[in-house]
């Protein structure tokens, strides 16, 4: 059992990171699920992380309360910017949310209270594996329920054809806003959790590259269901660890894997229908065809 | 006369739907042929496959004896098989002059191009007046003239037209059809896809009726015009 203890001592942070980035991937997946390509989620994570860290450091709030605030603050911001922004579509929405993310990063960089580029350090280590597991479980459960309800069907309908969806009596703008805000809540929670096990946060962790990293997780894993984004998060988080022996060339392998997946697995790694076909469980299509 | 174009057992899929289900026909050089049928019968699909924009699921297309089934669209155009696509497909942000110039994209004979341009101006004097305007600002009729004129700039041997009458006033439709007849008289072979069945069959020497991806009737234009089934289905009998 010493081996296990050692293993956990060494890799617990890595496991935490997998959990937190699974949350981030789910938050982007949620917006993608209703056809929105939003790159604002890294900024929402940033807001959540800073709000909760500041409340822990300066206001002495209990951890649970700071986490609640980590979810609420970005939700509020998402509500305000979502109303005008979500009218944009496709790459324009991506770019507007990207610009928003940059503004958030620069503002955090220049505020006194956030510690500017030096960030915040000495954040109490309150996050445990159970916190991450519990929140991930709640989020996954909630999203599963959502997916199997009229809201989930509405998201999917909007993603496929916005006009047709609106003519099914679906309030498209409201559903999009809901997905955007809920995504912000999840991202904010992930930020709060992350801040409380890494002792330290700084604005450089929430830039464009990070937004793209998270998006990559989802595309890599596949957007067909909840398993895909989580699998993608695990792979992208673990890959650098697994490729550690490649030293400076691991970036090349990392990039190559991304390109190859995009080229050869169009629906991501987790594609239930392809997997079923692969393992000989039926023709890869639904029965009755 | 020999067949300029012959189509053998052509089938084309659109996603999971078999839009054209194995059709065959031949076009005689110098004739106008009409391909008629209702919306969704597979007419446009057939034309797109002939131009290489859709890859047939099976079958062959021979143009002047050469198998062009697997050629790229631009290679097919360079062989003289030119299409005026549905909805006129003019390049709205380019000027009329630029649209016409692009029609001659594949040609390397400046003198011939200049001559073709004169011909087009002769056919459609309006285009000469509007030469520097953005094509998007032309009226519907003028856009159709431009689309046909642009195709003429490629010096085609076979002209495919997809619904040239769509959205045009009757007077303009008359104009367009008269022009087609005039063009045909210069020896150019024309394949016309139309919903305006009566007009199309009137100028066509031969016609094919397409229904849900199959040719269900064929004959001379006059024969088809008089066929009770055509009258009932398309002319409101």
């Amino acid at each position, binding site marked *: 059992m010493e081996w296990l203890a050692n293993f956990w001592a060494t890799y617990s942070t890595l496991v935490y990171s997998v959990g937190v980035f699974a949350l981030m991937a789910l938050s982007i997946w949620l917006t993608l699920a209703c056809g929105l*390509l939003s790159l604002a989620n890294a900024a929402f994570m940033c807001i959540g992380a800073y709000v909760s860290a500041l409340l822990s450091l300066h206001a002495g709030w209990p951890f649970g309360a700071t986490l609640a605030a980590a979810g609420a603050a970005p939700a509020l911001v998402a509500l305000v910017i979502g109303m*005008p*922004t979500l*009218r*944009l579509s*496709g*790459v*324009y929405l991506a*770019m*507007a949310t990207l*610009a*928003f993310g*940059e*503004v958030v990063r*620069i*503002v955090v960089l*220049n505020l006194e209270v956030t510690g500017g580029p030096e960030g915040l350090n000495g954040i109490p280590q309150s996050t445990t594996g159970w916190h991450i597991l519990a929140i991930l479980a709640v989020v996954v459960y909630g999203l599963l329920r959502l997916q199997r309800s009229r809201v989930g069907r509405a998201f999917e309908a909007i993603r496929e054809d916005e006009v047709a969806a609106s003519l099914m009596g679906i309030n498209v703008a409201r559903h999009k806003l809901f997905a955007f805000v809920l995504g912000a809540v999840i991202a904010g929670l992930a930020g709060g959790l992350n801040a409380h096990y890494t002792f330290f946060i700084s604005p450089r962790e929430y830039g*464009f*590259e990070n937004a*793209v990293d998270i998006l*990559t997780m989802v*595309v890599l894993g596949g957007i067909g269901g909840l398993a895909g984004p989580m699998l993608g998060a695990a792979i992208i988080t673990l890959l650098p660890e697994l490729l550690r022996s490649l030293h*400076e*060339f*691991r*970036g*090349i392998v*990392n*990039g*190559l894997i*991304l*390109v190859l997946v*995009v*080229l050869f697995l*169009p629906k991501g790694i987790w594609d239930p229908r392809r997997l079923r076909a692969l393992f000989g469980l039926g023709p890869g299509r639904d029965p009755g065809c | 006369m020999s067949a300029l174009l012959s189509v053998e057992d052509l089938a084309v899929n659109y996603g999971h739907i078999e839009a054209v289900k194995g059709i065959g026909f031949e076009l005689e050089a110098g004739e106008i042929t009409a391909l008629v049928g209702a919306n969704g019968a597979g007419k446009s699909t057939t034309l797109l496959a002939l*131009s*290489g*924009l859709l890859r047939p699921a099976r079958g062959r297309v021979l143009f002047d004896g050469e198998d062009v089934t697997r050629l*790229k*669209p*631009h290679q097919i*155009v*360079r062989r003289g098989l*030119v*299409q005026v*696509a549905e909805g006129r*497909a*003019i*390049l*709205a*942000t*380019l000027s009329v002059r*630029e649209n016409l*110039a*692009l*029609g001659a*994209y*594949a040609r390397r004979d400046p003198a011939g191009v200049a001559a073709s341009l004169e011909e087009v101006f002769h056919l459609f004097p309006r285009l000469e007046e509007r030469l520097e305007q953005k094509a998007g600002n032309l009226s519907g009729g003028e856009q159709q003239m431009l689309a046909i004129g*642009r195709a003429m700039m*490629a010096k085609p041997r076979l002209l495919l037209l997809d619904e040239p009458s769509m959205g045009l006033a009757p007077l303009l439709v008359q104009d367009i059809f008269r022009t087609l007849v005039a063009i045909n008289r210069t020896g150019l072979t024309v394949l016309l896809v139309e919903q305006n069945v009566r007009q199309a069959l009137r100028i066509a020497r031969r016609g094919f009726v397409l229904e849900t991806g199959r040719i269900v009737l064929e004959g001379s234009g006059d024969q088809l015009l008089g066929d009770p089934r055509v009258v009932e289905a398309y002319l409101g009998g």
Partner: protein
Amino acid sequence: MFTQQLLNALTLGSVYALFALGFTLVFGVLAVINLSHGAVFMVGSYAALTLVTRLHLPLGIALPAAMALSGCLGMAIDVLILKPLRARNAPHLIPMIATIGVAIMLSSAAQGIFGAEILRFPEGTIPAGEFTLGEVHVRALELSIVGISFGLMAVLFLAIRRTQLGRALRAIAESPRSASLLGINVEGLFHATSFVAAALGGVAGVLIGLNFNAITPLMGQPILHKGIAVIILGGMGDIRGALLAGLFLGFAEVMSKAYLSSQMGDAVAFGLLFLILLVRPSGLFGRVLERKA
């Protein structure tokens, strides 16, 4: 001071515009947001550096050679990665992510080969002259950057406006399907466009490498962000828009640093971008190139 700032803005703006030119060209013609453009820019810089330091070529030869090399790289990316994705009709997010992968590969490769340290052109590579006009100081290098940028942009602009090839590109931008029905070899021009765009990116990399005198594997990142802002402001795919927006962003940045606060230079740029998108979803100067197909 204002005249000097105006000149500063011009230099900065023309660099932005030059970078954004290739970026916007690829979007206009291929409808792809090519996020490897920053990495290609970096490769151009390293290519010129290697030619100058290893083969001892003069800059006059190294610059066009680096341009050609980065062009080939761009074309390779198109043929190997973007073409299969086009054939599959992949949604626009997909090629964008593929190009992120390419960017990661290229910058890692550059680091593996050249190391992470900042490299620079050896002394004497760079024209050293500088002169003063009243209050305004100018370096010959800056003048040549503005000159080369504007020269290349003018050539490209005229080529797009006046030549048959340029018309063909605009036709593809409007509708690849219509273009192919006119006998235009669309795939071939996709490759050619990728070549030209990457070559322009490579030149921008060399020029900035010379000016800032610091070549690093990650030098493409910051300018990529500015490039994104520029092509959106300019209207995506719009060449003239990219030129105007590049200059505009240069001015906005320099003037906000000069008369507001240098801390908020970037915040102003991106905040502006955000607001402009809300008010004018198709950019400040441009129109959207709507595809019919």
